[in-house]
C-alpha cells in the first residue's frame, strides 16, 4: 500500500493511494492536485534522525571528481529541510549552481540497534523518493557537505508516497530518473549503490540506534544539472512514484 499525508481545508489527513487518487480515511476520494502534500511520514515523539549519503554511486563520485569512498560519507539533515510533493523550493539570488539529487529513501520501521545485514530488511517500514537539492556555491571544506548547502528550509522534497516495504520486493534494483521540464537529465539504478541498504543499516546501527520514522537517503547517481526558477523537476523511482517540485 502507498500512504500519504496531506492538508485539505486546513486539516491534516492520512491518506492512501487509490487508482491514482487519494483516499482519505473518511472515505473521500481526492485528486492529487486538490490537496497540499506533506512528507509522507507520521510525526515522531523526538526529532527524527535524517541520514543522507554522499557519493554513494560510483558514477556520481566520478562525476564530482572524487574517488569512491572507503566508508559511507554521511551527513545529517533536520526536519525543517523537508517539504512535500508538488511544493516549491527556493533558489537563492545570485547562485550559479543548484542541482537536484534523486534518492531512494529508507524509512525505518522498528528500533534498530546493532542490526546485522542479514536482518536489515526486517527494520524497514517502507520507501519513498527524496530530491536532495544542493546549492554548490555554498560548499566549504568544513564538515562538507556543510549545512548551508544541504540543510536549507524546504530544500528536500520527500514523497509523494510512503510505499510499504512488502510492496517493494527488491529495493536494490529500482530504476531512478529525473526530468527537468520534461527532459530526461538523470537516469540510474539502485543496484549501482556503493554501500547497499543492508550495509547502511548495519553500519549506522552499529553506533547509533535508529528509531521508527528515521530516514536514510541513499545517495544519487550521475546526471545532476543546474536548475533555474520556474523549472519543474520530477524525481521518479520505479514503483514508488513521481515526486514533483518547482524551483522558485
Amino acid at each position, binding site marked *: 500500500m502507498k500512504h500519504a499525508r496531506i492538508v485539505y481545508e486546513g486539516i491534516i489527513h492520512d491518506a492512501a493511494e487509490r487508482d491514482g487518487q487519494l483516499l482519505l480515511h473518511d472515505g473521500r476520494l481526492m485528486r492529487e492536485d486538490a490537496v497540499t502534500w506533506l512528507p509522507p511520514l507520521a510525526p515522531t515523539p*523526538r*526529532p*527524527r*534522525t535524517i*541520514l543522507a549519503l554522499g557519493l554513494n554511486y560510483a558514477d556520481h563520485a566520478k562525476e564530482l571528481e572524487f574517488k569512491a569512498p572507503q566508508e559511507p*560519507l*554521511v*551527513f*545529517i*539533515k*533536520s*526536519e*525543517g*529541510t523537508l517539504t512535500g510533493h508538488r511544493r516549491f523550493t527556493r533558489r537563492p539570488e545570485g547562485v550559479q549552481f543548484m542541482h537536484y539529487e534523486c534518492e531512494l529513501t529508507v524509512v525505518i520501521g522498528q528500533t534498530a*540497534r546493532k542490526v546485522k545485514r542479514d536482518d536489515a530488511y526486517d527494520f524497514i517500514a517502507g520507501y519513498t523518493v527524496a530530491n536532495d537539492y544542493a546549492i554548490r556555491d*555554498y560548499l*566549504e*571544506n*568544513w*564538515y*562538507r*557537505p*556543510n*549545512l*548551508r548547502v544541504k*540543510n*536549507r*528550509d524546504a530544500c528536500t522534497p520527500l514523497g509523494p508516497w510512503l510505499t510499504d516495504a512488502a510492496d517493494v520486493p527488491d529495493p536494490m534494483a529500482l530504476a531512478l530518473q529525473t526530468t527537468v521540464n520534461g527532459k530526461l537529465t538523470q537516469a540510474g539504478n539502485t543496484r549501482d549503490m556503493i554501500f547497499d541498504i543492508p550495509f547502511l543499516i548495519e553500519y549506522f546501527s552499529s*553506533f*547509533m*540506534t*535508529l*528509531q521508527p520514522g528515521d530516514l536514510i537517503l541513499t545517495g544519487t547517481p550521475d546526471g545532476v544539472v543546474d536548475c533555474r526558477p520556474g523549472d519543474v523537476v520530477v524525481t521518479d523511482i520505479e514503483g514508488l512514484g513521481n515526486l514533483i517540485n518547482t524551483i522558485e
Partner: protein
Amino acid sequence: MSFMPSGTVYGTLLNFRSEVQAMTAQMDQPPYKAPPKAPVLYVKTANTWSAHGTAIPVPARVLEVEVGATIAMLMGDTGQVAGYVLMNDLSIPHLSFFRPPVKFKCLDGFLGIGARLLSAAEAGEPSAFTLEVRINGEVKQVMDFGNLVRNASQLLADVGEFMTLGVGDVLMLGCDVGRPLAKAGDRIEISAPGFGTLSNTLVTEAA
C-alpha cells in the same frame, strides 16, 4: 522536570578564538583550502541525548572521549532565544574536520543535557557566561564565553541567513580548545553560575 529538547540540536565548531588560532596554519592547506565563511555546524541526533545524572555508555573500542562543554541557546518563537542550558557534547577524538563527524559525535548517549533551563532574562548577557569542567572532582577546563568568534546574536543571524531555527531547536555557542579527555568510570561535571551542575558518568557499553 528536567529539560529535554523538542527540536534539532546543532553544535558549532570553531566559534572560540583560540580554536580558530589553533587551526589557522592548516586552514589554507588541503583539505580545507580556505578558512570557513559560514558558521560550521553539526547535528547531535536524538539518540545522543542523555539527561543530567545518567550514565553515558562508551563503546569498549573507544579508549577516551573528548568532553565538549558548552552552553546552548534554546529557540522560542519569532526567532528569539527562550533560554540557555548546559551541554556536554562528547566526541570520539578526531583530527580532521573535512567530513561531517557523524561517527564521532552521534553515538548513543553522547550529549549530556543540563537539567536547568535558564530563561533569557535570568541568564543575562551570554558573553558574560563562564563555566568549569571537572573530571572526578578535579578542574580540567575553564571557559569564558567572552572569547567567542561570533557572539550569540551574531551566530543566530549568520545561521538564520541559510536556515530557520524553529521553536524548540537548540544551538550550542561552541566548545573551546583544551577539551579534556575522559574514560569509562570517570565522572564529568560541568557547572556555570546560575546553571547549577550537569553531571554524567561514563560507563563501558554493555556488549
